């Protein structure tokens, strides 16, 4: 599904010089409840099509919904974590429109009475002098049900246009969703793409910390739509806030962190080119194409879209008691950013190290490794080494390679106890990645063990010194770095099974350096 476009795009710096971007994000989060929003069907990802369905989520005649209490609790916890007000009384509504993947031809959603409203989320972006906090205002977060999933067969694009036929999988129909909607985000200026990405990323961390969703963007359990408009830069004594907002577009399908940043960036450039050429922006839905990095025009959207919302008469209002809300407040986790700062200081990582660890998704694994006994430095070294390289190359999570936090702690223990040196430890890691067993088992099986026989070591040192009188003289003369060549030869003579630090000490002692 390759899309090309002939749309002109203005250079980003020039666009931002002339225009002020205003954007908003609508993020759908699939909750990880065991059952669906309004029925008892299972919610697991990847089941055979139409095996997790019942009269309710298939919209059979006569079937009625019943609200999933766990989903309501998740919605409230999300609201509290987003610093929202929690409605003491709210209702579901029906959003009426016809589409084959929607069994009832209405979506049971919340309309003008969301359960969470008026909150904010602080996100971190890079400033001129280190990290800066940007506050994103949240308008609302509400509960709704997901639709089924259409698969359009035949045709070139995978879209419904041109397809021979379509298949619908209703396993997803009725999965609980929380839609989180920001207020229009102003004041980000040139950092708009970065703020957008940081917001979605922070939201993902928050959902993970709350344990309410798998937030796997690649599986669709977190999906993002981005609204964007441009307005002219304020001139003279005019305040930017007084410049009226421009016409906005809504870009759908922005389903990775990188895409969020790229899509906003692209849309700024595209809209700027249209406006600079004297054109006007069409209010419409646009589709994001991950492969080509462009948006293309979708369906015109207007305020006349009429979903004939009305309160869902099959459900009673949701009225969480103050006691419930307070009890749920007590279950909130440490805010992810705060936790990151705490761990960074506990582990003694630099800003850069912490950022790499975070970006690699290694924070939890390092935390577990340290809890299992590894030093923070060793834990970082192992997780961010070969494992991270492979994870990044194969686009898989770090935890996918058969290495556990316990393995890392045990491996580090073998090093600190003096059984393994660094190169031996690397061989053990190879074994771990190959699934050969625990670190001790691998070391045993591969015969990895530092030689503890001091006589053999001294003999080897004496022989190497005798064979290299020139180098030995240099070391005696104070060129300590020249000892490296001698150390290497001793290690070679010992087949690598010696503690390099000890070898170094022995050589320096004997040469009186």
């Amino acid at each position, binding site marked *: 599904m390759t899309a090309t476009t002939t749309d002109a795009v203005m250079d980003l710096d020039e666009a931002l010089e002339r225009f002020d971007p205003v954007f908003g994000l609508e993020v759908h989060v699939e909750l990880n409840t065991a059952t669906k929003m309004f029925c008892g069907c299972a919610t697991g990802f990847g089941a055979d099509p139409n095996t997790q369905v019942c*009269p309710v989520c*298939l919209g059979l*005649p006569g079937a009625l919904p019943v609200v999933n209490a766990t989903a309501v609790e998740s919605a409230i916890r999300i609201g509290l974590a987003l610093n929202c007000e929690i409605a003491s009384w709210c209702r579901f509504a029906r959003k*009426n429109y016809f589409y084959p993947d929607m069994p009832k031809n*209405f979506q049971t959603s919340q309309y003008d009475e969301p359960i969470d409203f008026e909150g904010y989320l602080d996100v971190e972006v890079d400033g001129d002098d280190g990290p800066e906090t940007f506050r994103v205002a949240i308008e609302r977060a509400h509960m709704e049900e997901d639709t089924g999933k259409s698969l359009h067969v035949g045709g070139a694009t995978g879209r419904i246009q041109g397809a021979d036929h379509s298949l*619908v999988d209703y396993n997803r129909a009725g999965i609980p969703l929380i839609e989180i909607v920001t207020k229009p985000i102003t004041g980000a200026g040139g950092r708009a793409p970065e703020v957008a990405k940081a917001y979605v990323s922070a939201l993902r961390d928050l959902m993970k910390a709350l344990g309410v969703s798998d937030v796997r963007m690649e599986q669709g359990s977190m999906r993002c739509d981005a609204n964007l408009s441009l307005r002219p830069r304020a001139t003279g004594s005019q305040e930017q806030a007084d410049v009226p907002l421009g016409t906005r577009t809504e870009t759908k399908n922005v389903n990775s962190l990188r895409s969020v940043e790229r899509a906003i960036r692209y849309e700024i450039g595209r809209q700027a080119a249209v406006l600079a050429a004297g054109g006007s922006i069409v209010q419409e839905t646009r589709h994001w194409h991950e492969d080509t990095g462009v948006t293309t025009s979708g369906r015109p959207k207007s305020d006349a879209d009429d979903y*004939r919302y*009305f309160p869902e008469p*099959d459900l009673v209002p949701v009225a969480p008691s103050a006691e419930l809300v307070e009890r749920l407040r007590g279950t909130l986790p440490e805010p992810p950013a705060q936790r990151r700062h705490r761990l960074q200081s506990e582990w003694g990582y630099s800003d850069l190290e912490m950022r790499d660890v975070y970006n690699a998704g290694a924070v939890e694994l390092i935390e577990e490794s340290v809890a299992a006994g590894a030093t923070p430095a060793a834990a970082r070294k192992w997780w961010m080494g070969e494992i991270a390289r492979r994870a990044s190359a194969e686009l898989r999570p770090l935890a996918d390679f058969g290495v556990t936090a316990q393995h890392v702690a045990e491996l580090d223990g073998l090093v600190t106890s003096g059984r393994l040196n660094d190169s031996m430890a690397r061989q053990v890691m190879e074994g771990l990645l190959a699934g050969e067993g625990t670190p001790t088992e691998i070391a045993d099986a591969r015969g990895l063990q530092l030689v503890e026989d001091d006589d053999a070591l001294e003999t080897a040192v004496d022989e190497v010194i005798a064979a290299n009188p020139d180098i030995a003289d240099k070391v005696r003369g104070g060129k300590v770095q020249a000892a490296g060549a001698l150390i290497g030869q001793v290690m070679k003579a010992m087949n690598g099974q010696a503690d390099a630090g000890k070898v170094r000490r022995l050589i320096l002692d004997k040469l009186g350096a």
Partner: protein
Amino acid sequence: MTPDLTRSSAADLAGALSRKDVSAVEATQAHLDRIAAVDGDVHAFLHVDTEGALAAARDVDRRRAAGEELSPLAGVPIAVKDIAVTKGVPTTCGSRTLEGWIPPYDATVVARLRAAGLPILGKTNMDEFAMGSSTEHSAFGPTHNPWDLERIPGGSGGGSSAAVASFQAPLAIGTDTGGSIRQPAAVTGTVGTKPTYGGVSRYGLVALASSLDQAGPCSRSVLDAALLHAVIAGHDVMDSTSIDAPVPPVVEAARRADVRGLRVGVVKELGGEGYQPGVRTRFEESVQLLVDAGAEVVEVSCPHFDYALAAYYLIMPSEASSNLARFDAMRYGLRVGPDGVGSPSAEQVMAASRDAGFGDEVKRRIILGTYALSSGYYDAYYGQAQKVRTLIARDFAAAFEQADVLVSPTAPTTAFRIGEKLDDPMAMYLNDIATIPANLAGIPGMSLPSGLADEDGLPAGIQLLAPATKDERLYGVGAALEAALEQRWGGRLLDRAPELDGSAASATEARA
């Protein structure tokens, strides 16, 4: 022996069954024979489930023989309105759209009937998707009133009431959104109750208007209705609007049949102009009988009832337009392609199927409701109607300060002729003028026969209304009035209905 079984009340039949004077198979077979004999005239049934009914009856007989403790109505056969889904048994809702659809699950009401051992004889005719007051809007032909086969049996549940009135079933399940249990009861000389909203689970009842729909019993006596009410009522976790409280003591109230000291409110707004003289006369006599039995009569006023019909015809179609959206030919039901389109889109198939599957009245209400919910009109129509609903509830609350139950004629007229009002929707809608307020307020109502109107010799009904969750009051008052009336008549009203012999076998389609 067989004719006697079909003339028996459900309570008497239940007694004979428990004494093992008759078997459930005999009782069920007697009614199946009666259906075979007279339903060609009446066309109360859309589907008769001979095998299923007899299998259920055999099961009851086996369990009784084994000494198991059975529900009071075990073995008493019943008819079910075709709006309740029945696992493995066709459910059409009176619509071409669902012709041939076999539901994979049972409505809660049906599950409770099965659990209580009532053999289900079949599914009864109705106006398509319960939209109508005459059963003429069934896609499968009208049901005929057993009192006069040229007349309508009321609607939408005309099939259930006609089946009971013609002794094809001692009991039936109906549903009532604006009067669809009570008005058919009135015009067929039978009893019907719409319980408090939430009193009976709606799970598995094909929805017309979710905030108004309620299932209830149809029978030939107040006690029979109470016995059935007790079987189907009670909390259901599958319906979040169902009431989580004990079922009101309806059977006890029906047996006590006591109105001494009770305050009966006559609703001023329900009964004046537009009500047939014979209907009014029988109503006034019934009120006098209640006074004679020890009740006190007061007049109450419910001024906002004047707006009830208008509010109802905004709320009901609005909800219906959304509820019926699921009939799109994608997963079940009638599917047709548009004419002359080789490779139609899903939208074209939906449109063509809905056009072919829905009758005119259904389309009329979908259009009304779609319009009323549209942005820009919502506040003026749906929003305003909801306010009227609140005002009507307040009228009832004030009236129930002065009276324990309220009374009115159930319907303004006796049964009209088939075809008479078919081209005049407003005239048809007015049939429900006295029954609609109870649905809007969610309170329970009952209709029972008040006698035959002098001018046409056809049954008239009196409606009883009680505060929400006080359904037992309907049964106490209803049973007392029924006793007084039957004493005056010297027997049951239905014994005066003409004999049917199946010879009329009219234009209706025979179904088995």
